């Protein structure tokens, strides 16, 4: 089949997000943070969140990784900015559920914004972790599950 199937994964918007990342950098004020690491490939994401009045006022990330993980972090930060903690957690759950093959309603999906494009990752099981890493980081940052910090499969 050659590389044509790649188009499904690497749509223009994804490549664009990876090339021109949104919200990449560090915040002046941080209330929640999390560093996650994918030991199988060395991808890392450092996520910083500024929560105010139960809302994500600001969010930024630094890190290093493949197109998918960078685009995903870029899209994720866009998608959750301004959301309440509960909304953001619900979105993270939708994304990671989808990544393990669960079905979701159109409404749930729409809520993800551009990030929903990355659900095409389902066709590439080995790359699912790349796409979910930033969502996991968000989840853990917001839940402050510090015991599991630095640990993931």
């Amino acid at each position: 089949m050659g590389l044509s199937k790649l188009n499904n994964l690497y749509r223009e918007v994804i490549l664009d997000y990876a090339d021109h990342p949104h919200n990449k950098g560090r915040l002046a004020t941080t209330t929640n943070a999390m560093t996650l690491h994918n030991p199988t490939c060395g991808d890392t994401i450092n996520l910083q969140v500024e929560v105010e009045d139960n809302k994500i006022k600001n969010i930024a990330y630094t890190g290093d990784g493949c197109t998918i993980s960078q685009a995903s972090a870029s899209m994720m930060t866009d998608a959750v900015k301004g959301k309440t903690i509960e909304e953001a957690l619900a979105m993270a759950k939708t994304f990671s559920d989808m990544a393990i093959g669960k079905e979701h309603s159109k409404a749930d999906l729409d809520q993800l914004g551009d990030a929903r494009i990355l659900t095409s990752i389902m066709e590439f099981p080995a790359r699912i972790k790349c796409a979910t890493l930033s969502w996991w980081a968000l989840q853990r940052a917001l839940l402050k599950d510090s015991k599991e910090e630095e640990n993931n499969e």
Partner: protein
Amino acid sequence: MDNNTNNYLADFPALNQEVNDERLVYLDNAATVQRPRQVVQALVDFYEQDNANVHRGVYTLAERATKDYEEARKKVQKFINAPSPNEIIFTKGCTDGLNLVAATYGEQNIQSDDEIVILIMEHHSNLIPWQQLAKKKGAALKYIELTPDGELDLADAKKKITDKTKIVAVTHASNVLGTVTPLKELATIAHQHGAVIIVDGAQAVPHMHVDVQALNVDFYAFSGHKMMSPMGIGVLYGKANLLRAMPPYQYGGEMINDVHRDESTWADIPFKFEAGTQNIAGAVGLGAAIDYLNNIGMDRIAQKERELVNYVLPKLIAIPDVEVYGPQSPAKHTGVIAFNIKGLHPHDVATALDMDGVAVRAGHHCAQPLMEYLGVTATARASFYFYNTKEDADQLINAIKETKEFFNIGTV
């Protein structure tokens, strides 16, 4: 119910052969069992189609191998009803799993003057690791003894397990006496005293329905090769909170989170305990063995073995000069039957039975302290699996009678 028609035999090529010009009757199932075609085929299919290393690979074959491997883990989880697949660690075998717990949990939690309690009937694999740990730490090793009938003495257990006890390590089913340990009771006693209970399930999982949650045990180890999987694969179940608190056992690929020149951090369970390339094909084969067992149903398997024991044990006991160890009542006896013929050494007996096509084991069965306790140096042992038949039992009984005659007369 007709035990003479065996629907399974056709699946086991190894059982359809002659040795010493006699029909093979394989009665060493406590040592290792035979594999059905379906398990061997699963191995062949894996090697011919999906073979790759797992987890680290991005390409198609590696994805398939990873899926196969993790599905096998889930099959094991369901089979023993563990709460999560993360609590299923693939090992080399039961011995490997028990050594893992001793070298990590034991090393971390046993101090001098602590007590470790085991059974006098333990297999060396669930005895020496604790004996050596106790020695190293200056802890005490205490043995729970037997009732006159050869069963575990619960009254003694209640005396031996105290507040000083940190570990109770017990076999689920004896590989000599054919007894089943009252695990749930022991788990309750252990937990009342703040100890963990670690179970050697090598002789249980292949033969009966095991539910680690219902039994409420903390660790449970068993081997694949005694339940029809390929060799070189086994399982250690552990409660997640305990596993998470333990240091790794081996270091290497796949078990890390991050490695720098002078320090490293570890992956989450189960991977923390799976250093290096695992026996992926072995795990897939174990999954196929579980499928095979589930197809028959563990209750049906237990029932088939029960019927065989009901048939053969009284016949064996009825032979003059034959002594059977452990309970004399078939209802209390698993398919593992250790015996001696008065005046004959079990090695001579096993050689003679082999000439009649009957494969039994002779020796101390890796349970020397139990042999000392029983006052023998060795026994013969016939052990049945669900694929054995009444015909097999008859061939055993006849061969024992012939053997007695041979050695009484000095020739045949």
